[in-house]
């Protein structure tokens, strides 16, 4: 939900001369014009010409070890840095390897542009070497995609790709570049404006609808704000915090929304959903008004939809009209950018008399406090390291300032539950697609975007092995990312489901033959550390985080620890398994 003209389209150029350039030169011109400083990629036959030209520019190229890593890295770069992430890969297998990364960015609405090489146009459809119809393959998992058929179209299409990726509801855009097209010559005139007649996202909310929201807030006894990734994408955290504090409405977020509201604020309820906090889920069940902003009511959030916030009026603000009334019926739908909508809503609240808002909310907030005290997130640290303890210590040692990326599964949920995110853009996870192997390359991308920040990938022993090859990228590019492995020698989340719902039949989830991660780190030229006892956790973290190189920290944790609370799939979210 980046603003329309915040970027290249605003630039005005006084002289508009055309010059004859090759497609590759034009590509570089447009990329520079779009402010691209980094490309994550992997070369190959169909993109040799582009690489040849790229090497002549000052755009940084991060050479990944697998194209999936390139896309996740671009994703992490976009989330941490608030810019469009760019990747460049070759045709055929290079292109197909990007699909998982693209699908993940699509589900999480992350602005990236994927440039894929393609065989020369006269060979398209011939089953040529390394030919694949990547535009066909990625049609359902990109916001839009293009096959560039002539060099003349190149500047317009690249411009459109960047514009589409970051405007409206952001998302990945793929541009397929046949080898002869980029090698061809054209008269290049820099494009000023993007002209897409059919694409016009609604940023400004309907005022009448907003006034109805104010009315609902005025009369609500038990209101809740439910915020999501849209707040982070549209940079609306400040406006959200203002709304919550002046109306004294408690806030929960989805996984994607963590950091949108300060995790230490008294109004913070914790995350909602399948592994949400007891108080967040109970508040949702009991509330009489839910203000949902920048969310899409994923099934992991709602559980049984009929029972979700069933006593509440629901206000839903989102820039994407298809998100509204897709899964949950709403009382007041508002199509608009989160930031713009909240900027309009906040002054309207000031115009009404909320009276002594603290007294008015006392009963509701007391009830929530009671839920918090009766069923807190808790575990008992005994002889074996508890994974939750590692995350709590990580939070303490980093003082909550690190950018945390995660893999997927238990590690992801514990990171979400026990690291209290104060600010947006500090929690980077594959939320919608739930893509194992995301965390390490995303950490690399985040580290590129924020070289001065501490970037930590919270991983499991299973998921880290899915893109472990990217350690080589981190070492080669001197990106000092830190990997915290919660090593339970299981595919833990699936094991947890097997324990709870399949009578402990642990079919194929044991991972007894994992590599020695300390030696593996050393083999990559990184540093490896291990903690086997609870008392070693803090010292290993302190040591590992202070080394200015890539570090893998292997924590041997309780093998059969599970993530709680847990809502069984399809149950109402107020029906939680607690321990």
């Amino acid at each position, binding site marked *: 939900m980046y603003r329309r003209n915040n970027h290249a389209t605003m630039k005005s150029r006084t002289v508009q001369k055309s010059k004859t350039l090759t497609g590759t030169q034009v590509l570089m011109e447009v990329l520079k014009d779009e402010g691209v400083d980094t490309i994550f990629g992997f070369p190959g036959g169909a993109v040799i010409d582009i690489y040849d030209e790229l090497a002549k520019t000052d755009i940084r190229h991060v050479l990944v070890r697998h194209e999936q890593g390139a896309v996740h890295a671009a994703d992490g770069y976009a989330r941490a840095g608030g810019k469009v992430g760019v990747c460049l890969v070759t045709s055929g297998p290079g292109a197909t390897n990007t699909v998982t990364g693209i699908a993940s960015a699509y589900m999480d609405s992350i602005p990236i542009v994927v440039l894929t090489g393609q065989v020369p146009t006269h060979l398209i459809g011939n089953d040529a070497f390394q030919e694949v119809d990547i535009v066909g393959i990625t049609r*359902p998992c990109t916001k839009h995609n293009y096959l560039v058929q002539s060099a003349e179209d190149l500047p317009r299409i690249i411009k459109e790709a960047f514009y589409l990726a970051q405007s409206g509801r952001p998302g990945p855009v793929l541009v397929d570049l046949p080898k002869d097209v980029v090698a061809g010559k054209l008269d290049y005139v820099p494009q000023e404006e993007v002209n897409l007649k*059919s694409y016009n996202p609604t940023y400004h909310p309907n005022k009448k609808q907003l006034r109805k929201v104010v009315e609902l807030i005025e009369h609500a006894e038990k209101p809740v704000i439910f915020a999501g990734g849209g707040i982070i994408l549209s940079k609306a955290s400040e406006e959200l915090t203002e709304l919550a504090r002046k109306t004294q409405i408690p806030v929960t977020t989805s996984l994607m929304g963590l950091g949108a509201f300060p995790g230490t604020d008294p109004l913070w309820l914790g995350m909602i959903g399948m592994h949400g906090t007891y108080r967040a889920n109970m508040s949702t069940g009991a509330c009489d008004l839910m203000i949902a902003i920048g969310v899409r009511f994923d099934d992991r959030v709602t559980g049984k939809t009929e029972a979700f916030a069933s006593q509440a009026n629901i206000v839903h603000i989102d820039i*994407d009209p*298809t998100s509204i009334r897709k899964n949950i019926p709403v009382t007041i739908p508002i199509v608009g950018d989160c930031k713009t909508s909240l900027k309009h809503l906040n002054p309207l609240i000031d115009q009404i008399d909320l009276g002594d808002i603290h007294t008015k909310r006392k009963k509701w907030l007391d009830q929530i406090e009671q839920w918090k005290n009766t069923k807190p997130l808790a575990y008992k640290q005994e002889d074996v390291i508890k994974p939750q303890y590692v995350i709590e210590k990580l939070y303490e040692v980093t003082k909550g300032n690190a950018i945390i990326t995660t893999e997927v599964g238990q590690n992801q949920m514990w990171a979400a539950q026990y690291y209290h995110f104060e600010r947006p853009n500090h929690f980077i996870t594959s939320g919608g697609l739930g893509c194992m192997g995301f965390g390490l390359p995303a950490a690399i991308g985040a580290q590129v975007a924020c070289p001065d920040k501490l970037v930590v990938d919270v991983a499991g022993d299973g998921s880290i092995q899915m893109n472990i090859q990217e350690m080589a990228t981190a070492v080669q590019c001197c990106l000092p990312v830190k990997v915290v492995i919660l090593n339970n020698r299981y595919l833990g989340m699936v094991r947890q489901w097997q324990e709870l719902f399949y009578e402990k039949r642990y079919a194929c989830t044991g991972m007894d033959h994992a590599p020695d991660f300390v030696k593996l780190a050393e083999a990559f030229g990184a540093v490896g550390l291990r903690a086997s006892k609870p008392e070693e956790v803090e010292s290993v973290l302190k040591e590992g985080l202070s080394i200015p190189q890539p570090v893998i920290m292997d924590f041997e944790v309780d093998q059969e620890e599970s993530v709680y609370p847990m809502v069984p799939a399809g149950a109402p979210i107020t029906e939680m398994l607690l321990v």
Partner: protein
Amino acid sequence: MQEEKHIMTMLVDNEPGVLSRVVGLFSGKGFNIESLCVAPTMDLKVSRITIVTKANPPVIEQIEKQLRKLINVIKLRDMTGPKAVKREMALICVRAKPEHRAEILRIVDIFRCKVVDVGLEHYIIEVTGDEGKLTALLNLLKPMGIEKIARSGALALYREPR
């Protein structure tokens, strides 16, 4: 919730892959397509797609929103109801034994359709009309034996103000 039949027409960029985006949306999201027509408009850069679909009202709302979200869809209109003219064409090959020939021609006359091919044992009948007319005609021809049928799917245009 009761399923309703809706006819939607959209103007789209006349480019390769656009139809695939529209159709892929229906299959990917589990929406249903009853019929589909595509052809260029007077502006050769723009095509018109007409889709007949059946779903309950919330799903119809989703279909419309999802279609509008496609970058290549320029304009979309729900043509359901009396505000639009709707027509469908069919070519029907009907068995025409000597004893049925006169009866078939009478039906053709009543329905104001045309015989476009005649053989010893068959007629091919061209008919245009709304769905009700086509169904009525088919019911009448069925006893003679319908050999083959090709239907165009529905087309629709909004009525201009009088």
